[in-house]
């Protein structure tokens, strides 16, 4: 297998480091016209249209971003090849859900998503809906602080972004917001069941 190109390594590092570097890296990936055309072409030749292809490319980037940040992406594979396989797999799963067809060899899960099936995707979607309800109850400022923390911003960067006095204040704000989020989750009846499911 080919070693991952240096420029791809830089993109991966930028996504991991978060902040504006992550934004720039994702923009570069998004602007990869050749890869985007390839994904759109794949979708168009497998029962979709160009718009579906564009959607799959975006969804693929979302999965890629998260997998890189969560260290699920094995860096010995090519970033472009990995993203293409994610998009292909997402499309095949979507098509399968719609048509209830059998999985073909092409829809082999990509690395890091071995348990990804239309069924698990359904439960994930449901869970996201519930979590979204919880998020909607939170203050916008708290949501932003938690997002920055999730994206690996340092406490000093969070303080600067949120106009807080210093990193100690940022840490306190993040703690308070996180506690508030967990409290809302605990109080949500639908999510209590999700917690139970996690424990099974």
């Amino acid at each position, binding site marked *: 297998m080919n070693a991952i190109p240096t420029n791809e390594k830089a993109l991966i590092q930028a996504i991991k480091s978060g902040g504006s570097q992550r934004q720039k890296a994702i923009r570069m990936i998004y602007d990869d016209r050749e890869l985007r055309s390839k994904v759109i072409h794949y979708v168009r030749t497998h029962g979709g249209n160009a718009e579906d292809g564009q959607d799959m490319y975006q969804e693929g980037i*979302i999965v890629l971003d998260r997998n890189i940040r969560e260290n699920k992406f094995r860096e010995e594979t090519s970033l472009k090849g990995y993203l293409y396989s994610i998009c292909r797999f997402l499309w095949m799963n979507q098509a399968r859900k719609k048509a209830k067809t059998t999985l073909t060899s092409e829809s082999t899960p990509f690395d890091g998503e071995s348990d990804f099936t239309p069924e698990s995707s359904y439960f994930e979607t449901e869970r996201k809906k519930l979590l979204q309800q919880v998020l909607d109850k939170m203050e916008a400022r708290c949501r932003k602080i938690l997002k920055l923390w999730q994206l690996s911003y340092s406490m000093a960067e969070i303080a600067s972004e949120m106009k807080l006095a210093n990193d100690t204040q940022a840490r306190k704000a993040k703690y308070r917001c996180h506690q508030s989020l967990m409290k809302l989750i605990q109080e949500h009846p639908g999510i209590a069941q999700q917690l139970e499911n996690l424990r099974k």
Partner: protein
Amino acid sequence: MNPEKYYDRIEHYLSGNMSEQEQNDFDKESKENPELQMAVDLFQLSQEAIEVDVESDLRQQMNNWQAEEQPTNIRPLKVASRRRRLSYIAAAACVLLLIGTFTIQWNAGNYSNEALASQYYQLPLGSDIRSGSAALDQNFDQAMNAFDDGAFEESMRLLGKASTPKSQYLLAHSYFQLGQFEQAISSFDKVVASNDSRLKEKAEWFGLLSRLEAGQEVQARLVKITADEGHSYHQQSIELNESLNSIWRNFTK
């Protein structure tokens, strides 16, 4: 359950900052302590919730980038001011304005050069291009396969100097797929000039679509195809001509 009690340790554990020994001890403790295990689950679920927000932001960001890519041929509407006492007229005007704006946006999306070219564009089929002696042309077959896989740059590399009309034709489609319309026009023109009977009309049509994508004038070429009833793309050319001269398209200009 009191998750605050375990907060710092869980954060330390989930961020991967514990030593192997610490991790093992934590795993062992959480197995024996349901309250700790539940606090870990809750922490993870909260992170998942934040991730939903992160995803949502990224999706929005990419939608904005996509919108920036769309041609903006909508001119701002001038809305006449209305007196407050005629509020019902103002309300009606707002509704009409909204409908008008949506209509213009819809038309701009459906009648733009890009949308029309995309509507009439068709991917080339191997059977359209390959000749009977195609088996002898291994490079071309590989290039065609690469094209079918969406690997357009690889296809172009395999085509090399594209010395035959069919290679030039496939090269033109690769340029088109990559959005390099000027080069696509040049390649389609070369195919037309070669007078290859199987490809000439196709190249004329797709050359026209490439010009449309590139924002060039296409009327003269379109008239030529619409006037030729025997042309393979005669019917499509009539439809395209109607769309280009549609009141809706002109309305959004």
